[in-house]
């Protein structure tokens, strides 16, 4: 007898079909992994179970949860179900909590609503729950506000809300996609612990096969709103019978094939040389006339980069990677130290003097949605850096240049008249890369360029970046928390921890045999499909 049985579930929003005849069942105490690319309907399946679909959604089929027909249940019945019988954890912890209410209020609210407990009792239970998810009283009193917590801590609060009443089913929709690998591991361990000790079932949704493989008893693989394959995790992963499953598995561990680049000649002057770079931020003062406390985001960092070299800068979120990148891009002034690019100092130089350097140094950001003005056409967006050239090209030459780079990044020249919203996430990241290479720079700084993308699209973008490095001979500084990305594309890896570079070396060596604790933690936490498969097989044979 299954806890949840979805049969022939069809969903359309307006005229767009989202789900086509989904079948899915979860037994009590079972962890079901739901895997697919973005847009495949995973999140909509979850929202259908909660009946929190957007306006204009039309649902058909059957969804039986613990004897209740969810699709036919009236709103009042669903309110009793949500939070009490079905808990839900969301992808984006930064926005999932109400900014004007304390974490105590937010955890206690559901408890009070469902059990009718008075405020002190509900708060006592909330206190216990927060302890359980790893937010102890001394450091995280109930009176804390969400903005005083980091992303990982906020996700723990969201988990506390979802599990406060020990629901029978926990839905976790990409619960770790927005977090770094070490936090991902911690959150997944926490979720597994909660599920096991309360005998809950879990629907774990992710685009990354490696993330769910380690957790799930069974897997359901979806694509374009249809179930491709379903079954035991060990069987699905070892057989990889379905071509799409194979594709997902490959994407998850993808390494671009690339021509071994020429070893940079050691005598040549380095392209980029950073020495003793430090950046302080002043924190808020505790008292009005108290001394300002300083937070040292980057602390005495020195390294150099040769022309054409591909270097990864890896570290956990908040370790100072992005601050370092912003200083190299001359977007943020260092507190002390020096940055020399092509032999020229860039700290404290006027914007006018920076112009020729900016041409040689371009950037690709993480968020392909936020980094384009939605009201400009692709041509204008991609051509933006051309104003850095001494001789601006005329309109025709400009179109030619844009067409050329669009082809280089795998888009069509015809795309230049489209607006950003007409492109998918992966295509937008291609657009961002096109914008970065149009001035033929010597260095591209890529800040988490594939973290916001699905594994399968991630693989394509990594291929593209590898190709471009070979054909253009450009150097990369690749900022990431994801080691598979570092492994895929770079020769050298620097590990950053609490503002300092703690380990540097050839990528294979650093990732294969890490020396520093920070590097070891990153390597240990990285999702690994092969190891997950071994564990799943071991679990299956043990049972």
């Amino acid at each position, binding site marked *: 007898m299954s806890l949840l049985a979805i049969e022939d579930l069809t969903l359309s929003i307006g005229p767009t079909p989202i789900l086509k005849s989904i079948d899915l069942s979860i037994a009590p105490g079972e962890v079901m992994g739901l895997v697919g690319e973005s847009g495949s309907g995973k999140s909509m399946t979850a929202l259908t179970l909660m009946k929190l679909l957007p306006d204009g959604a039309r649902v058909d089929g059957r969804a039986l949860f613990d004897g209740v027909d969810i699709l036919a249940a009236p709103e009042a019945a669903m309110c009793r179900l949500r939070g009490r019988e079905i808990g839900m954890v969301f992808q984006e912890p930064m926005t999932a909590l*109400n900014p004007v209410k304390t974490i105590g209020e937010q955890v206690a609210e559901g408890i009070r609503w469902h059990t009718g407990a008075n405020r002190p009792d509900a708060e006592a239970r909330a206190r216990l729950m927060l302890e359980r998810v790893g937010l102890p009283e001394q450091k995280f009193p109930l009176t804390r506000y969400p903005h005083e917590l980091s992303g990982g801590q906020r996700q723990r609060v969201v988990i506390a809300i979802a599990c406060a009443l020990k629901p029978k089913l926990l839905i976790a929709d990409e619960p770790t996609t927005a977090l770094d690998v070490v936090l991902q591991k911690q959150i997944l361990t926490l979720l597994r612990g909660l599920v096991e000790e309360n005998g809950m079932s879990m629907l774990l949704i992710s685009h990354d096969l490696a993330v769910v493989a380690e957790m799930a008893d069974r897997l359901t693989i979806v694509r374009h709103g249809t179930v491709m394959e379903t079954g035991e995790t060990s069987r699905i992963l070892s057989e990889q019978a379905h071509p799409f499953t194979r594709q997902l598995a490959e994407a998850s561990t993808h390494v671009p094939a690339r021509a071994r680049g020429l070893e940079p000649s050691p005598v040549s002057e380095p392209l980029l040389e950073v020495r003793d770079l430090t950046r302080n931020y002043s924190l808020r003062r505790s008292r009005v006339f108290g001394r300002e406390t300083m937070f040292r985001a980057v602390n005495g960092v020195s390294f150099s980069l040769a022309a054409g070299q591909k270097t990864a800068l890896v570290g956990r979120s908040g370790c100072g990677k992005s601050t370092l990148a912003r200083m190299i891009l001359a977007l943020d002034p260092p507190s002390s130290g020096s940055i020399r690019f092509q032999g020229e100092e860039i700290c404290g130089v006027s914007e006018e003097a920076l112009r020729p350097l900016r041409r040689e140094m371009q950037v690709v950001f993480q968020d392909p949605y936020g980094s384009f003005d939605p009201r400009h056409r692709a041509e204008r967006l991609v051509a933006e850096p051309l104003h850095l050239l001494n001789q601006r090209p005329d309109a025709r030459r400009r179109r030619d240049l844009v067409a050329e780079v669009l082809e280089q990044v795998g888009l069509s020249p015809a795309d230049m008249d489209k607006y950003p919203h007409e492109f998918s996430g992966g295509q937008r990241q291609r657009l961002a890369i096109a914008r970065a290479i149009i001035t033929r720079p010597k260095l591209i700084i890529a800040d988490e360029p594939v973290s916001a993308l699905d594994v399968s699209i991630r693989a394509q973008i990594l291929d593209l970046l590898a190709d471009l490095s070979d054909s253009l001979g450009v150097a990369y500084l690749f900022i990431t928390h994801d080691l598979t990305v570092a492994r895929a594309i770079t020769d050298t890896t620097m590990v950053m921890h609490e503002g300092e570079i703690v380990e540097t070396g050839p990528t294979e060596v650093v990732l294969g045999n890490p020396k520093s604790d920070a590097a070891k933690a990153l390597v240990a936490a990285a999702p690994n499909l092969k190891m997950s498969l071994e564990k799943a097989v071991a679990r299956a044979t043990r049972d």
Partner: protein
Amino acid sequence: MIPYLLHRLASAVATLLLASLVVFAVLEILPGDPARLMLGLNASPEAIETLRTQMGLDQPVVVRYLEWLYGMVTGDFGRSLTYSSPVIDLVEERLAVSLPLALMALTLSTIIAIPVGVFAAARRGRPADTVAMGLAQFGVAIPNFWFALLLVYVFAVGFRLVPAGGFPGWGETWSSHGQAFQALVLPAVSLALPQAAILARVTRSAVVEVMGEDFIRTARAKGLPQRIVLWRHALRNALIPVLTIMGLQFAFLLAGTIIIENVFYLPGLGRLIFQAISQRDLIVVQGVVMLLVASVILINLMVDICYAVVDPRLRDGR
């Protein structure tokens, strides 16, 4: 929270000083010698000179500014040339009408606007929303003096519930308080209508925006019904733009009500300014303008404090 408040307070005082400098400077530059104005066209130069010395007009500009500023701080706004009485008394008399009127209108518009805005937001795109927002559009579009005349026709002339105009003064007894209050009811309603219409639209769009946020989905996933989520989670987050508009409206209601004051024959602040300007009574203009600037700054300070009460993130701002 304390550093935030001190910071706001310091910037309020700085703004006030800057504004006083501007007000003083403008009246310095404007043509017209107060002494000559007071004594009329036929006065002898000697008499004018004597009066100038008496009024301190022969002092250097800096000294006069500081004396004027000191007077402002101690409540001495100078003497009106046309009314022959201290400006502070004139202002006090008028404020006794304008301040209660502004408060009544603001309260009324808030009581109407916020529920209507939230109601419309909750039923976004449905007929109730369309009707509510259509009415709000109507409320913005009606000239308020016309609406005032309509109110007078119905409630004062037709039902004879309230007086059609005039202000009897607050008096000493409860019944005279009541009469004064009655005299302000129709003006307050006619001032509140367009304000409520604007505020309702602002509230609606702010709530609609907040309802699309992720944390609303989290609250719904806890099992809270839509209605409770709306009031407990959405409204407080939507309050920032609403408070901003309310602050602007209150400042307008204090002095920008001259048309309504004229319709109802009310001796309010708006009329005082209007008369002072038309009679070139610069001392009164200077005093009242300064007072209004001060009250706008004070209102903004209160709005800033409300922001911090509503949104904990702002309390830590530097």
